[in-house]
């Protein structure tokens, strides 16, 4: 009978609200040629639920999906074909980083960090090297909140990029 007031039962399911928000967002992202179909909306909503579950998190209200969708619609690397997949990938990375930094960074700051991170890479590879992306974003987030020094980030980026790509630079 305890389930009468269990936390998971009092949190209202916000999937409908999220679907509506994403549908509304199509009017704005449409100018970039990016629109989510009903099927794709279902896909990203499921990806969000899975990411929340995998990262042991709870979300209230319409949440982060519409924010991510709106933020990346102007990216040069996002097109009609990969739009939904990119959102699915980013929402997973977003929650993983939030958990890894123990909620130490605000949503908006993390979205901005993620956007900078992906936009400034020479080759965009949404969906590739998830673990590395998370690790670096966690470092960036910690730097943003003063837990990590800039010098450490530079070193880690060098280690990661060169090691993971099997690249050897004679000058190093």
């Amino acid at each position, binding site marked *: 009978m305890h389930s*009468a007031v269990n*936390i998971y039962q009092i*949190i209202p399911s916000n999937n409908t609200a999220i679907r509506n928000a994403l549908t509304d967002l199509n009017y704005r992202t449409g100018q970039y040629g990016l629109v989510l179909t009903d099927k794709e909306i279902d896909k990203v909503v499921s990806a969000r639920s899975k990411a929340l579950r995998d990262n042991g998190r709870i979300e*209230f209200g319409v949440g*982060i999906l519409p924010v991510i969708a709106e933020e990346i619609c102007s990216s040069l690397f996002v097109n009609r074909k990969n739009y939904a997949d990119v959102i699915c990938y980013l929402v997973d990375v977003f929650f993983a980083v*939030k958990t890894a930094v123990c*909620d130490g960074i605000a*949503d908006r700051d993390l979205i901005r960090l993620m956007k900078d991170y992906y936009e400034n890479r020479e080759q965009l590879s949404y969906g590739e090297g998830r673990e590395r992306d998370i690790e670096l974003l966690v470092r960036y987030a910690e730097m943003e909140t003063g837990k990590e020094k800039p010098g450490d980030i530079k070193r880690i980026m060098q280690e990661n990029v060169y090691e993971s790509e099997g690249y050897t630079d004679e000058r190093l």
Partner: protein
Amino acid sequence: MNGYDLSGAKINYANIRFGDYFRTLMNEARRCSYIGNENAERMKKELGNVLAHVISDYTGDESTSLMQETANELFSSVLYCFDAFLMGSGSHEEAIAYMIDNGVDDIYYNGQQLLRRMHYESVGQLVRLKKTRINVTDKTYNTTLDEEIYSYIKRYDRKFGAHYTKRHFSYRPILGQGSLCGIMRMKKYLEHMTAENDFVARFDENTVQELCYKYSETHGTGYNETGVNICSLVLMNGVFASFAEKKRGSITLNESDACKAEKLFKTANDGQKEEMLSEALKSLCTKDNTDYIMRCLALLMLRINDAIENGCIDELIVIS
């Protein structure tokens, strides 16, 4: 009762736990059909709104999500707030009637007000406790009074961590605080400590210091580590002195007093023992602390029986 007649209700009191009052009361009210589906759904929805509001405050509107553990902690804090307020009702039935008549947000608001008042009261209690401090060198006792309690009260967060409980302070009073938690437990702890201080204060300060010193000397715990509850030490010495028919209020014992008291207690049956102990306690109490000291009776009886049975009476008393 606000128009609700629940007097004929078959509430099973055994199903209601004070450590989880709101939830167990609600479950019981639902089981007895005092709270129907409609009301239950309304309450759940309102509870969700209250929690969402608290979470929004917690994240400072900077995050739409949070870790499950954090959400659970905040939920526990909200429930604790409900518990604190509803436990102040005259009866379980009145608490249920209040839940039906008023919104969950109303219960939360009133609960927060109550917790704030309790928080402030606990500061006052600490001040009073320090004023009645027993003048001893015991490190555990002094650290608890000067640091631990203050640190808890200072950090107590009635909004996001109202249920947070420090299970044990280094110095423990004779009586425990039961299943209470949060600030209610703190208040109870302070009440017990004050009662003990008041009790010890009526005895000569030098004699109390001497008892503590001798106890630590006998047990090799160092001059500033008595390692035992001071009130209990004074109380036990007083009780044994009373058994040995020493002067009323005396707390010093010599070897023959201890032997006499032990012998007398050993030969008595259970009923007589209880009567002896009760009389001894009454003779030691003042009007203000009778209630607390008399509540210690059962526990003291257990300890005395144990010590006599195991031949370690010196664990309880100090023989000069």
